[in-house]
């Protein structure tokens, strides 16, 4: 089993997310400017909290899945690495008539993340006991390490992200590694493991899980949309699409460990009913798991499908997400 996977699910691993995009938007209009672009309502959250939301295209497809952080004087946007360019273009396209400044801070900062059931303990050692008061979806300036500290999370475990000026990043990394020794911290988190960690919780990676013609509704990202919000790009399309989806994204649990090619057609009897867009072997489940877009009428949990690979039939059943309760959630619930 991959050491990073084991550590993330049982102790903690340190990941370098510096390749992700980090945009700082300041100026009097920073809140209304971003609010006009995202699908949730920035006015509904307090300062020093964050949102997982969407930049949509007019047709309801997804331009970017983003994290939006709101403090007292600016907005910070975090994007997947491959979305950095389109987000730059999107912000610049719509900036006219707003009193704002946009700064791409990706090269001037680094982002280090500690993820796992022990991440809170390690972060306490690194950044002081006060961080225990930092709630999920909160962030603060941490004076101990001189970094922005965010509590995010999409793999079902504690996740603390440090955003720090590049010149201070190495000393912060050294400190995290040193403090993490007592907690079996995996020091060099393998980023490729995030794919299965996210898949197990059904957290989507846009590049892999959401083909360009797929809408936010088909991807099941309803919770990243404020349906009562009066205006945002893509709003009209979203309200149309929620009534008739076409295909819906489902999690599939395979009978064995085989990994079919991506994309693969999904069948019942001899009828093509969907397309598999992602598959990974889950060490916790002990089987392969995948995501598939399935015809709406059959896009429900508990249905048996199959995929043909050469002449071999791979059976899979649609299942609920998340696939299991993580150690972090068990700990919080107790």
């Amino acid at each position, binding site marked *: 089993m991959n050491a990073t996977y084991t550590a993330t699910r049982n102790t903690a691993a340190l990941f370098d997310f510096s390749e992700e995009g980090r945009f700082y938007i300041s100026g009097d209009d920073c809140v209304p400017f971003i609010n006009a672009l995202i699908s949730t309502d920035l006015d509904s959250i307090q300062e020093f909290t964050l949102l997982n939301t969407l930049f949509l295209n007019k047709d309801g497809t997804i331009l970017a899945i983003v994290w939006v952080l709101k403090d007292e004087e600016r907005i910070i946007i975090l994007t997947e690495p491959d979305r950095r360019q389109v987000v730059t273009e999107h912000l610049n396209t719509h900036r006219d008539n707003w009193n704002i400044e946009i700064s791409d801070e990706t090269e001037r900062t680094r982002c280090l993340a500690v993820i796992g059931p022990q991440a809170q303990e390690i972060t306490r050692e690194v950044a002081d006991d006060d961080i225990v008061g930092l709630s999920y*979806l909160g962030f603060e300036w941490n004076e101990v390490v001189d970094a922005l500290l965010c509590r995010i999370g999409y793999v079902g475990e504690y996740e603390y992200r440090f955003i720090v000026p590049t010149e201070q990043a190495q000393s912060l990394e050294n400190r995290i590694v040193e403090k993490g020794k007592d907690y079996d911290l995996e020091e060099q988190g393998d980023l490729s493991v995030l794919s299965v960690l996210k898949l197990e919780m059904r957290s989507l990676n846009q590049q892999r899980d959401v083909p360009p013609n797929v809408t936010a509704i088909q991807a*099941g990202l309803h919770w990243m949309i404020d*349906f009562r919000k009066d205006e945002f790009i893509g709003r009209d399309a979203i309200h149309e699409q*929620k009534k008739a989806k076409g295909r819906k994204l489902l999690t599939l649990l395979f009978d064995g460990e085989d990994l079919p090619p991506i994309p693969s057609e999904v069948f019942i009897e001899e009828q093509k009913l969907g397309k598999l867009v992602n598959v990974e072997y889950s060490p916790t489940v002990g089987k392969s798991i995948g995501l598939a877009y399935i015809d709406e009428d*059959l896009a429900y*949990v508990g*249905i*048996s499908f199959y995929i043909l690979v050469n002449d071999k039939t791979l059976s899979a059943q649609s299942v*609920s*997400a998340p696939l299991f309760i993580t150690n972090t959630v068990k700990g919080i619930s107790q």
Partner: protein
Amino acid sequence: MALSKLDLAFQQAKTRKAIIELLKRVLINRLKLPLEIDEVADDSPLFGSGLGLDSVDALEIVVVVEKEFGVSITDDDMQAFRSVNTIVDFIIAKQAEQKEEQ
């Protein structure tokens, strides 16, 4: 005549859809969520960054699921309540359990 696999799948989907819609309806009403049924995805996270429910809402969910679906819920069961789909899994499993006991 036995149903074909495809017909059986349609029947299973229809049954599941009916439970999901009922659960969404009672959750929206009971928790006074500003949402319509088709604005909640079956796998949307209920807590945290998802629908943003909290521990008080969790207790309301227990009450409403027990009342509407006739199943009893323990504190340990609560861990399974992560999404509409996982609650439906729980309801179906509990109802089957209760049927066997009768």
